């Protein structure tokens, strides 16, 4: 289920990006955060606890909303625009964090 709810501005051109290999439908002008959380409930797994995360401040201050490109570049989902053809992953490529559950 989606976390965010669109309340307007829905008359924008649709775009499709890929998140963890699966297509995600979004709208031109969406941030990555809005694209991902309008399609699903969370952005990433916390490295330090058992819980999933979905961002916090939305203004580039908390860094809770990091996602990655498939090639390993880190993106702040709240301040990066979504675009057609993007291939996003929600865990850091090549990293392995054993969580203390």
């Amino acid at each position, binding site marked *: 289920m989606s976390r965010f709810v669109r*309340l307007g501005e829905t008359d924008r051109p649709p775009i499709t990006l890929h998140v963890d290999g699966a297509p995600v439908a979004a709208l031109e002008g969406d941030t990555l955060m809005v694209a991902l959380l309008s399609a699903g409930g969370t952005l990433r797994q916390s490295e330090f606890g058992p819980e999933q995360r979905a961002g916090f401040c*939305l203004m580039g201050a908390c860094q809770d909303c990091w996602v990655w490109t498939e090639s390993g570049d880190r993106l702040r989902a709240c*301040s990066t625009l979504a675009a057609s053809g993007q291939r996003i992953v929600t865990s850091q490529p090549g990293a392995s964090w054993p969580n203390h559950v």
Partner: protein
Amino acid sequence: MAEPRIIIVGAGPSGTRAAQACVAAGLRPIVIDEARRDGGQIYRRQPDNFTRPYAKLYGTEAGRAQVLHETFDGLKGAIDYRPETLVWNIAGGHVWTASGTVQKAMPFDALLLCTGATDRLMPVKGWQFAGAYSLGGAQVALKSQAVSIGHKVVLMGSGPLLYLVASQYVEAGADVAAVLDTSPFSARVKALPDLLAMPSVLWNGVALTRALKRAGVAVHLGVTPVEIMGDAESGVSGIRFRTGSGKEETVRCDAVAIGHHLRPETQLADLARCAFTFDAGTRQWLPERDGDGRSSVAGVYLAGDGAKILGARSAEASGRLAALAALADLGLPVDKGEMTSLRGDVANYAKFARGLARAFPWPSAQAAVLPDDAILCRCEGVTAGDLRGVMRETGAQEANRAKAFSRVGMGRCQGRYCGLAAAELIAAESGVPIEQVGRLRGQAPVKPLPIAIGDET
């Protein structure tokens, strides 16, 4: 003589007005801003292809927002504007910037820090769950992306933003399950004499609370948060709190926004080696400045909410005033009468801000009773009990020492969201006055940088 180089950090209300004053004096200031578009957070602009009108986006402040945006648009040809650029350090007389993977070091004759603010947070057990956001974040979601942070939303904390966000959400059609204010009504009554410094703004606030009542939104005053309920997988599922009369209640929701007014972003002032003093009214350490915005460091000026939380209207006045002070210090002619009048404006805004701080007090006592199993530092999952344990083991009673042992304040946000609460917890636990706990030192880079950063080629 070469034209003096003025660098303005931030393109919100204070940065815009500072830039305007420099341009009027015949200079071409460099304006560095982290965002894609100008406006700052309060007057944040929606993406180009969004169509909502000003009245819908900014409510009672629509006129001010539009004038500020048009002012900035008009300055674009006359300034060296660098959007999407982070200032990550100030050292050796240079401003260090990063844009993408390109870094630069720029010298300056005058530096105006108009860095703005972020939400001030008092942690609540469960605030690490997906679906818990800052109040400012909830507003950004609506203002800049036309989304609600959830299907059923609770807004909790204190401060003018609480009611503003609630009414904006209701008006936009979001389902607001409750507004939970930690401040009691009695605080508002006591603050009235100061709040009357700006009757129209006070009236706007009263109108907002009336609109919420008319919309049938449950508004509770004087609450004590108990817990944000939820689970690791699906996130927030509700909130438990005690009412002003001590009764425990639960509200079901899938999103919670929390915040207790704002805190200034002072890291750059710190890195520029500006002196700080403790402000007892807000229980925050703030950079020192004279009435015009001069910091303790020659050539460095502070304006807007990045220096002290006085609001957007004050930010416009203090941004212009600080720029005029910088121009005067550089030997350029300025209108001394205008500076006197701006000082008066800022003093009046300061009186109103003092009233707001009294009406919506920072609930410092909540840190002392934060349960041991509650997460204090969201970034690294450090609990209140972890910090208390570190204090017992090491005797740490100073913010930076406690940070080194516990990692509270060392994570991704660098203490922006846990630092003030951690200091309150340390003070309560050790019996040391909050000002003696000190403040987390600003560290470069003030935000994470890409590893592959390099000079422009």
